[in-house]
């Protein structure tokens, strides 16, 4: 009879924890997502193409894409600024400000949507002022961008902060002792150090905005071809009992999210290779 030899390791429990991990990911992520593809596959290729390329769908993708992109860019600029201020300076009320940054993470998105609509509608505090200079900020793409900017804000800040904190002050001092002006130090030393985290944060914010639903539906007005974002279109299809149509559009959204995640991961791998330690 063969005796089973068990190798001893210093870190026990590998088999058990891996088993649980795989089961957990399978139940929560993998199986539900594959159902999406199986369901979609049942409808046939022709109807699938018809739904995902219908003018209404295409206009929804485009709207989702460009509003998410603009809000991500806004967050890229102001998120960097906020992170810079939070890391570089100490001032009264910094802790309060720091807590404020995390609110979009924690707040139910529907609450955010209602709050934003109240503030930016014609009667709201900000909307009222915007109205005076002729800008309507709700029930149009501007409203969507406002909501998405709110939702995506923490991503850029929280990704850049640790990198800025790690950056040695001496590196900047070395640059200036070598004759670099403030701008040269910024472009040649600070920017390249922060860039990978900056791009990652912006992409994360973009990915989050692309799928956002809860806060947008209140402020956008949801008019087909005008202010109907892709996640909302899925919802509309479901309400009309068109399950296949919903899953088909969902498939496209899933592929978009997946490619973005791939991009984020390769960005992170790239930033790890470049200068650590």
């Amino acid at each position: 009879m063969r005796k089973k030899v068990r190798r001893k390791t210093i870190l026990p429990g590998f088999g058990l924890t891996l088993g649980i991990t795989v089961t957990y990911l399978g139940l929560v992520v993998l199986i539900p997502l594959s159902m999406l593809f199986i369901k979609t596959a049942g409808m046939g290729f022709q109807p699938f193409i018809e739904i995902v390329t219908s003018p209404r769908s295409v206009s929804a993708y485009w709207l989702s894409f460009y509003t998410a992109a603009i809000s991500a860019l806004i967050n890229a600029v102001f998120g960097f600024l906020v992170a810079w201020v939070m890391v570089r300076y100490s001032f009264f009320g910094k802790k309060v400000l720091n807590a404020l940054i995390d609110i979009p993470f924690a707040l139910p998105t529907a609450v955010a949507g209602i709050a934003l609509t109240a503030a930016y509608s014609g009667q709201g505090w900000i909307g009222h002022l915007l109205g005076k200079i002729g800008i309507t900020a709700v029930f149009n793409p501007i409203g969507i961008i406002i909501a998405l900017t709110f939702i995506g804000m923490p991503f850029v800040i929280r990704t850049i902060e640790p990198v800025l904190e790690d950056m040695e002050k001496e590196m900047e001092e070395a640059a200036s002792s070598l004759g670099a002006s403030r701008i040269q130090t910024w472009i040649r030393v600070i920017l390249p150090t922060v860039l990978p985290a900056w791009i990652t944060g912006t992409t994360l914010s973009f990915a989050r905005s692309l799928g956002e639903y809860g806060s947008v539906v209140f402020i956008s007005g949801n008019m087909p071809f005008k202010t109907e974002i892709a996640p909302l279109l899925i919802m509309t299809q479901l309400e009309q009992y068109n399950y296949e149509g919903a899953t088909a559009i969902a498939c496209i959204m899933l592929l978009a999210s997946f490619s973005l995640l791939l991009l984020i991961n390769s960005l992170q791998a790239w930033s790890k290779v470049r200068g650590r330690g």
Partner: protein
Amino acid sequence: MSIIIQNVSKAFGDVDVLKDLSFEVKTGELIALLGPSGSGKTTLLRSIAGLEVIDSGNILFHGDDTKDKTVQERQVGFVFQHYALFKHMTVFENVAFGLRVRDKKSRPSESEIERKVHELLQLVQLDYLGKRYPSQLSGGQRQRIALARALAIEPQLLLLDEPFGALDAKVRKELRKWLRRLHDELHITSVFVTHDVEEALEVADRIVIMNEGRIEQIGTPEEVYHHCANAFVYQFIGNVNLFHGRVEDKVAHFGNVSVSLPETSEQETKDTVFYVRPHDLDIHHSAPDSTAFKAKIDHVHLAGPVVRVDLTSEWGDPVHVEITQDYYLSMTFQKGMDVFVSPKDGRLFMQDYSI
């Protein structure tokens, strides 16, 4: 380039870090700023570089005041303790940085930059590492690259802030010998900060010893080692035994030992401390003269070039003595033995000096 430090003072909030310092660095000299942590030596170095702004006083380069000159304008090579290399750039680009950021008129051509960088990398003996990133180098290599980078701007003055502080003991010794040789080759006026006495004594032409924002002594390594200006320097520069006593009528009393001091100018009774280096004490089986005192051997450390003996004096103070291996073998001292200790040399400092 010569540097003149004139009455320089600086405070961080309520803490005075530099208190009215003045000294001069001659052209081509290698000066060590030596002192315990918190003595202000790094702040002084950073002030010379223009990385800190002094509150009062003047720092003159070549006789010209530097007050209105920015860090960039001072053209000073600065080497940081933790290297401060640009992590996202290759070694080559790090060294080339100072040349690339020059304005269009004075910037050398690409081939000129390449030639110059390779020359510098050869100088620090690391030409083969040009394409690597800083994270792929050892600490000693990184510091040599940092030095090459600082030299690229052809500085008139080289400032090094604890350049070997982050390295392990062996590399540190090699690098400081190498720095001395490099200085003898290039003759750039250099100032380096250290808290390592041995390092300062070995490398520097002259040493500025600092304590709590003041200069305690300036001198060559020989002067500083053999002619300590005061009790602080004596204690800082090497191991020392302290014997507390009193001076009365030109006689000093330590425990049961009395020493007459015919030359002292002290009239009144005063507390005093007698400082003796461990190698200036002898151990005997019987009292050789009246200055010897009784002590008990607690421990004998045999490992090392000298034998270190820990004793307790008859009045209960710990005493450390260093004797040669040969003397130890001829005298057969053992733990627990009662012996006599006598000083060969030492310094007496009156107690009004606080340390």
